[in-house]
């Protein structure tokens, strides 16, 4: 409850400023819609069932892409983090691919996979993969050497060292990577859906633009932002639970 207060206060102030700006600024409401017309646009989307359908579509695509990225990024990261000699060769390639925006991949993605659900999934995958891979590698390579000494002390097998020591020791750091990745990947779901898809929140934006409906455009943006906030909060709770278990306090 304590956490809800700053959120509520912050948004109240934001909406008030927004409303005041539209009232006093004399802007064309088609170019800069006031909060109330965005709210009614939102109502319209809910009433017609478009909103829920778009959200579900986007979330499904998003989580397919994210979970795939998590699975690949995590397993490759664990491998490379353990075999740093191999990583020395892979790291430059990863650092070369990482700064290429997922959006730059879009034309190829559409050419290779066609339109539909796949481009959005692939874009999310690309966006989430690199932060997960890189933090997992660094998490594994930086684990406290004392834990490995404990493993040796009790004569743990190589397999047990991996499952009982390395993975849990690296886990808090890895979750940080997952957290960064989930936020940055959510940014790109919209881009993915703006090009390839006929449904979802990104498509809602394209559709609103084509119909010159600034209120619906802004409504879709609000929903995207709110969902991003919600995902971040939920992930934060999971992370906090994990940290609390290990006695790590993190701000």
């Amino acid at each position: 409850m304590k956490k809800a207060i700053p959120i509520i206060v912050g948004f109240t102030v934001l909406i008030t400023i927004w409303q005041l700006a539209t009232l006093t600024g004399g802007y064309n409401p088609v170019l800069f819609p006031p909060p109330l017309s965005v709210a009614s646009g939102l109502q319209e989307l809910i009433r017609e069932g478009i909103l829920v359908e778009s959200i579900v579509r986007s979330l499904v695509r998003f989580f397919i892409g994210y979970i795939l990225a998590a699975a690949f990024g995590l397993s490759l990261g664990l491998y490379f983090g353990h075999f740093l000699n191999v990583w020395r060769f892979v790291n430059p390639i990863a650092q070369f691919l990482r700064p290429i925006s997922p959006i730059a991949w879009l034309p190829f993605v559409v050419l290779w996979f066609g339109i539909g659900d796949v481009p959005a999934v692939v874009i999310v995958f690309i966006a989430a993969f690199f932060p997960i891979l890189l933090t997992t590698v660094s998490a594994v390579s930086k684990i406290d050497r004392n834990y490995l000494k404990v493993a040796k002390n009790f004569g743990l097998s190589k397999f047990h060292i991996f499952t009982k020591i390395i993975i849990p020791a690296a886990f808090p750091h890895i979750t940080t990577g997952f957290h960064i990745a989930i936020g940055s990947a959510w940014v790109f779901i919209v881009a993915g859906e703006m090009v390839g898809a006929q449904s979802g929140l990104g498509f809602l934006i394209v559709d609103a633009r084509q119909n010159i409906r600034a209120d619906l455009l802004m409504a879709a943006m609000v929903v995207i932002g709110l969902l991003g906030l919600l995902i971040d909060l939920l992930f934060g709770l999971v992370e906090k639970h994990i940290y609390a278990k290990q006695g790590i306090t993190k701000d």
Partner: protein
Amino acid sequence: MFVKIDNVSKTYKQSGEILQALQNVNLEIEKSEFISLIGPSGCGKTTLLNILAGFESVFDGHVHIGGKEVTKSHSPGVTIFQNYGLLPWRTIRKNVELGLEAKKTFSQREIHSISDEYLELVGLTSFAKHYPHQLSGGMRQRAAIASALAVNPEIIFMDEPLGALDAFARMQIQDEILRIWQKHKTTVVFITHDIDEAIYLSDRIVVMSPRPGKIQEIINIYINRPRQRNLPEFLDLRAKILEILHFAKKLQQPDFYL
């Protein structure tokens, strides 16, 4: 002889300089003996312990424990570290069970009953479900002792295990270590900086000297346990060790009197 350390030497290279950490160390330890290694930093006591525990594989000479040569992949002992060596993501019970899980010989039920036994031995039964960070330093060290004992090792190495504890917790755990040692008759090699602690616990004290690290003197302690820390024999031993370590202050004659 249970432990045979035969002419062990060890050199390190540190920024181009060659450091003689150990030079021709010979020591024999009997089964069930409690041995303390004492000496200033740089005397090689931790290096010697690491060699015994199989953490240090490159050295000259030979170490046998129970008739078998100690190598990187084989040491029959378990080490208790100063920083407890507990895994923070495991409960106290799961920490005690770690070494048992590594052995394929136990069923889950057996593991559970063994950890019950050792948690009770160190008085942590009611903290089984706690995580290490929820316990005090003394309790964590008791948990570390339980996890080492649970695998029933033939020999236990302790590297300044009580160094991080306050004086009262220290004395309390010293008594517990003695009680458990007398019950299990495990061989113990114990590193400490604390002369009183060494006298209070050990059958023999190995005093080491630095540069190059070597054994300077071995002192037998014949005082009956439980030992009173203020007995004359106790104080005499302390004075003797201080003198060996060159900490004894001689009364100097002043140059002149006023």
